[in-house]
């Protein structure tokens, strides 16, 4: 855990030192010490207004996706589950696309309308799956089937909007869907941090219940755990974390899938340890992707969503190979 935190700290420093305009470590250090009102205005602006929000947002989004992914895999008892399994990201994408197309009708700036719509639509998707689970029982099968239905529904609506959009609007929609930390600001950092912090007490309280759920439904139920209730509560937390993560930066795949596997491989199934480590691992993956994106293309930063999608496949193979010997469960 400490090693992972040190690794994350180093990556954050590296992330702050890289970017289109470059910046040596000494300037970053002095810029950090001088604060946002430092004498060197250029350094202060680049560091405090551009890079710092992106780095902090990367940590928050990665942590949210890592936490959401592990909880999702636990409540569904499915190692392939991630925040995207239940259609949350498709809903966020549709919400953002809707705002990009028709946001001008709302008298508010785009940087508020787009994430607000994405957030709201994620909660609508959550509400739909939740309603299905209430009606038919919150079993993993029902949740996954409901999620797949919601996923296809919102993907279809997203495609429809893309079909109707003008080339300029379509370009904006596609860019949003890429998932990029460049959209970050201190406002988005604050909102995401508040939502993540609001979820933390609930997550902390349910660590043992989630670990007990790993014994299987029959065992957990016979130990007095209200399996359906814990599944529904966790599902709501996952929806909030995912909404907070994707609403501002767009769709970022694989982090929520891989971070939980890495955490479980390192510390096992005890959620007291695997949840924090999944959060840190998610942050490491995202910041690592950000650094890599800036390193290979300093002039035009490649969106992290593309990097995580490309790097995610070999990482997933590595995790499968590692866990495969012990049986993936």
């Amino acid at each position: 855990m400490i090693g992972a935190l040190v690794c994350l700290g180093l990556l954050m420093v590296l992330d702050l030192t890289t970017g289109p305009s470059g910046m040596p470590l000494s300037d970053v250090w002095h810029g950090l010490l001088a604060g946002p009102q430092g004498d060197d205005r250029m350094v202060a602006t680049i560091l405090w207004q551009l890079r710092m929000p992106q780095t902090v947002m990367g940590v928050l989004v990665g942590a949210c996706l890592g936490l959401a992914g592990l909880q999702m895999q636990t409540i569904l008892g499915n190692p392939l589950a991630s925040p995207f399994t239940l259609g949350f990201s498709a809903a966020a994408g549709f919400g953002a696309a809707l705002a990009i197309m028709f946001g001008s009708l709302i008298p508010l700036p785009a940087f508020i309308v787009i994430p607000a719509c994405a957030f709201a639509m994620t909660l609508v998707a959550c509400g739909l799956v939740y309603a299905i689970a209430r009606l038919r029982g919150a079993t993993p099968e029902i949740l996954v089937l409901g999620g797949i239905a919601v996923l296809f529904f919102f993907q279809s609506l997203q495609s429809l909007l893309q079909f109707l959009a003008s080339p300029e609007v379509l370009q904006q929609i596609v860019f949003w869907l890429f998932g990029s930390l460049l959209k970050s600001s201190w406002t988005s950092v604050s909102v995401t941090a508040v939502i993540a912090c609001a979820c933390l007490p609930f997550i902390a309280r349910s660590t043992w219940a989630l670990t007990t759920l790993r014994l299987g439904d029959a065992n957990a139920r016979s130990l007095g755990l209200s399996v359906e209730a814990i599944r529904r509560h966790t599902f709501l937390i996952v929806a909030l974390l995912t909404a907070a993560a994707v609403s501002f930066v767009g769709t970022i795949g694989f982090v929520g899938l891989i971070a939980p596997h890495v955490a479980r491989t390192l510390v096992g199934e005890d959620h007291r340890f695997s949840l924090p480590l999944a959060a840190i691992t998610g942050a490491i993956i995202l910041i690592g992707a950000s650094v890599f994106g800036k390193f290979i293309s300093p002039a035009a930063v490649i969106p992290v969503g593309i990097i995580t999608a490309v790097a995610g496949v070999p990482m997933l193979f590595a995790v499968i190979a590692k866990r495969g010997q012990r049986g993936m469960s």
Partner: protein
Amino acid sequence: MTARLVLRDVDVLHGRTRIISGVSASIAAGQMIGLIGPNGAGKSTLLNAIAGQLPSKGKILWSGNPVDPRDVGFMPQQCQVRADLSVLEVILLGRHEQLGWRIGDDTLSAATRILHFFGIADLAARGMPTLSGGQQQLVLLAQRLMRQPQLLLLDESTSALDIRHQMHVLKLLKDYIARTGALVVIAIHDLNLAARHCDSVMLLNGGALVGHGAFEAVITPDILRSVYGIEAEFITSRSGIPVILPLSPTSVETVPREEPR
């Protein structure tokens, strides 16, 4: 006053099919009851209903109150653990409601005691997926005892154990009853084990209770013929315990219906 498990006209329906019909019994704590009967008799269903895991009609009372699933130690039939948890972690989860971020010394020593009680202390650090079915069964049974339940419901919880471990576990359960005054109801297929270790038996057939009392009074040649469809020889051991020696099936039965779980 001794606690009692009271079943009054208990019916359990699976869809429109009646799995358990009109089971009534009153059982005092401080003993081990063997729940016996052929496949599909309704043993698992009745245990699930008593444990509050299945909806039922009629009354199921423990010490005069409806059974609270949190107060019962229930071990269902299919409960293999595939998650990569250590044996010690699984034992600790027996008290998951009481666990905090830091596990107290009391809880840890209780878990260690249970591991020693079951003779599985050497497995404490082993991962559950690395254990055999029988070892897993021992661990999960130990986990239930970690809760110190006064009502322990076990659904074929010794089925994966070898004969030595079966006898060992049943002896441990008797010790547990002697120490705590608990009631243990165990669904069991081995009639000879039931005869040796259970204080009394409940015989289920076709979802109905067809006999309840001392083993010798409930299990007779006629009952074995009509309920189990076998001819058997009854021998009395030197210690006076009846031993059943199955001879032959009286008829070829149709495939027994599956019990819902």
